[in-house]
């Protein structure tokens, strides 16, 4: 690991001021991704600004029935929060399927949103990786790509965004609040992460000097009966091959409301707009679920080892919707 300066900020103003004058600086949340990447030599900030003491640790009810989550709330605390479990169970479940207890106890909401891909070539300094070194090429495309993305990829990068939490946030229309010395702005989560295109090194809409201060969830009666289903190689402690965050509202046998997002299959947390469009107003049947999944996965591109994800994703979508229909949301 290279040498760097360490600062600790106690309030937001100090944190954003510090990063505005240190172009090579990075914020340090739980450190579970940044410290790892610094040790591997993938990230090398000149200055690390520890933000774990910022007073952004609240989960608060908003007057409109939504919820505001501070950026420094720990993943474990958010998963166990009464408001989240009651109103947005898919979010609580998504968090609990991520990483291990020790890591969830450290990881923060802001850091989870900004966690980087787990593509092995991105971590391996001897491999060609456009994300790590623009223009170098992509060893994953002709290499080990079983875990890689099938939606939203480009010929320059096929990495997935690995977060479980963000899949639920995409389905819930979450909004990310950010702040810098220039002021505050709000970015919908679905626009926060960018597709790789020809610039896979540019991953988010966040400017280098901006701090994530909060994530807001709008009210959603639908979300109170929702589920997160994660398909992976082991029953616990593994990244998703495919995951589905879903909420379903049915009246008189017709779909009157639906939220659907996919993880493990795409370059960014993937809101399944096409599937939602097919489902809305359609009969709530297995057949409609399958048609919706087919529509969403139509543009999917499989590579040498991850073709299987296309059918797996369709089945996971159908199974999750079927479960919502027959059993309702998870408690």
């Amino acid at each position, binding site marked *: *690991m*290279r*040498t*760097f*300066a*360490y600062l*600790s900020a106690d309030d937001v103003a100090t944190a954003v001021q510090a990063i505005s004058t240190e172009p090579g600086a990075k914020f*340090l949340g*739980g*450190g*579970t991704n940044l*410290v*790892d990447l*610094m*040790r591997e030599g993938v990230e090398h900030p000149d200055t*690390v600004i*520890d933000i*774990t003491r910022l007073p952004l640790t609240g989960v608060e009810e908003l007057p409109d029935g939504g919820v505001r989550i501070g950026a420094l709330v*720990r993943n*474990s605390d958010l998963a166990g929060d009464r408001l989240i479990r009651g109103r947005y169970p898919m979010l609580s479940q998504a968090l609990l399927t991520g*990483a*291990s*207890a*020790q*890591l969830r*106890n*450290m990881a923060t909401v802001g850091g989870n949103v900004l966690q980087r891909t787990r593509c092995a070539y991105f971590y391996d300094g001897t491999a060609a990786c456009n994300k790590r070194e623009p223009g170098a090429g992509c060893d994953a495309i002709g290499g080990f790509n079983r875990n890689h993305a099938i939606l939203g990829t480009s010929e320059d990068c096929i990495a997935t965004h690995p977060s479980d939490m963000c899949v639920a946030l995409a389905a819930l229309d979450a909004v990310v609040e950010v702040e810098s010395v220039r002021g505050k702005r709000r970015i919908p989560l679905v626009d926060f992460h960018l597709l790789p295109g020809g610039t896979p090194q540019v991953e988010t809409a966040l400017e280098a000097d901006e701090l994530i201060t909060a994530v807001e969830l709008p009210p959603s009666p639908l979300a109170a009966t929702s589920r997160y289903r994660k398909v992976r190689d082991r*029953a*616990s*402690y593994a990244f998703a091959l495919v995951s589905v965050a879903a909420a379903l509202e049915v009246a008189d046998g017709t779909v009157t409301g639906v939220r659907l997002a996919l993880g493990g299959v795409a370059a960014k947390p993937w809101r399944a707009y096409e599937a939602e469009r097919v489902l809305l107003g359609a009969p709530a049947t297995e057949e409609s679920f399958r048609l919706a999944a087919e529509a969403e996965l139509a543009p999917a591109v499989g590579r040498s080892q991850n073709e299987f994800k296309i059918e797996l994703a369709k089945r996971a979508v159908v199974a999750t919707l079927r479960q919502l229909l027959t059993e309702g949301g998870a408690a």
Partner: protein
Amino acid sequence: MRVTVTVNGEQRRADDVWEGESLLFLLRERLGLPGSKNACEQGECGSCTVYLDDVPVCSCLVAAGQVQDREVRTVEGLAEGDRLDPVQEAFVEAGAVQCGFCTPGLVVAAHDLLDRVPRPSDPEIREALAGNLCRCTGYEKILDAVRLAAARR
């Protein structure tokens, strides 16, 4: 930099700490507490698990500066004098220790589980210990140890 931290109830200080050091390095190499083990340094194996402000974390991914003025409890802090903690005793009696490298992390994780859930079901034990890898035992004896410790509480 200087780091002041409470470890196992005692206030400790370390000088000339490098910013890039982990809490694990601080504990093992500077504070003379080699109980927590360094196996992967990537957050994957859990052998470095310690309590930080009462919740278990992977100390290999905590930057040393982050623990300033906070409280750490390591596996060395679980026993009372010569009397082992019931979780430690159960690990010995159930034969859950082979090479022992994973043991300190597992003991801390199991200790935390039993504090929160005194009578855990098998799936609860498995999930709570999922972040602790063991290459020797095949986990069965570890499950036995946690059940034994739970039964004795």
